[in-house]
């Protein structure tokens, strides 16, 4: 056992800095992070709006029609465009992060995350086009 007996004066006085609530305004990198997290607000609003749609649906044709008119009103278009921008940012950041969490290995070698990110984009564009085609052709 080590024994210790200390009679020295304490000269140290480490200076502790506290994080400010506005830390995310200090650096562009942090700001973009907050923006990324902020896109979730848009997502929440949209999800709730869609949920409302389901509720309106079971309330009957009239209720549904009302909902449809609200979401497709010309006033809603700019809001939707804004949402698209936010969603695009979400997608952009998501595809950048995902390959670093789930590493894909082919023949024991890890695929380059940049390559996987591009793969995500290709898949995304394909699903989007497919969805649009189905939607457009559904009439």
């Amino acid at each position, binding site marked *: 056992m080590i024994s210790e007996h200390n009679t020295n004066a304490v000269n140290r006085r480490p200076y502790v800095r506290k*994080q400010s609530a506005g830390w995310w305004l200090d650096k562009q990198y942090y700001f973009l992070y907050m923006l990324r997290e902020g896109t979730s607000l848009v997502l929440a609003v949209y999800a709730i709006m869609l949920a409302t749609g389901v509720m309106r649906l079971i309330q009957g044709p009239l209720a549904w029609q009302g909902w449809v008119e609200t979401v497709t009103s010309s006033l809603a278009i700019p809001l939707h465009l804004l949402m698209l921008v936010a969603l695009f940012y979400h997608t952009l950041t998501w595809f950048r992060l995902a390959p670093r*969490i789930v590493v894909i290995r082919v023949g*024991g070698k890890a695929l380059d995350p940049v390559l996987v990110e591009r793969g995500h984009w290709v898949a995304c564009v394909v699903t989007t086009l497919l969805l649009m085609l189905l939607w457009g052709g559904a009439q």
Partner: protein
Amino acid sequence: MANNKSMSLSVQRYRPELDAEPWWQEFSVPYNEDTSVLEALQFIKDELDSSLSFRWSCRMAICGSCGFMVNDVPRLGCKTFLRDYSSLRIAALDNFPIERDLVADIASFVGKLEEVKPYLFRHDPKEMDTSVPVEEEYLQTPQQVSLYKQFSQCINCGLCYAACPQFGRNPEFLGPAALTLAYRYLRDSRDQGEEERMPMLNSEQGVWSCTFVGYCSEVCPKHVDPAAAINQGKAMSALDYVKQVLPKGGDQ
């Protein structure tokens, strides 16, 4: 080479016995194409103000001593060059208490590295006793090495802690380097220490305090990508969570 140009440097000072809080001091230092921030600080110490304190040793970006905030970005002083800047503000690494001038108090950081039990575990107690010489290596193919190699390159410089706002807010967070170290061992085919280390990973102050800000990896001078390690650690922890819920297999 001649030192034909000079640059003004603001250096943050804090001398606990004299100063109530940190303050900035201006210096003008000569520099050339090769001059690093570390060399600029050494010039200040040797020629302008010998009371300035900072840590350094290898001056080749491998010992991890010389982390400073350079224009508010965590960087290694010995691998940052004056030629890339027009003016400089140097301070102690963010998110750590300032011991003195540019010296950060990193004791808690080193404590975290120790806490994740960064050494090889084996189930067989005979294999844990390394005082007896062995005849053979554990086999490990280059591919198996590649699973953890990147995560074993950490020089413990602490830049990632200065970069991480989650650590900045909550000093309890084990943080990028320590979690990466834990993950490095977990991915090593020779290690059997899952039982020892998963509890830390699984805890609130483990991987789950990270919100993937990602700035840690951005500033890491050794491309360790701690953000990836932690977030792969989340996947590992999630799997461990499921294992805990599922009834234990018969062979346990």
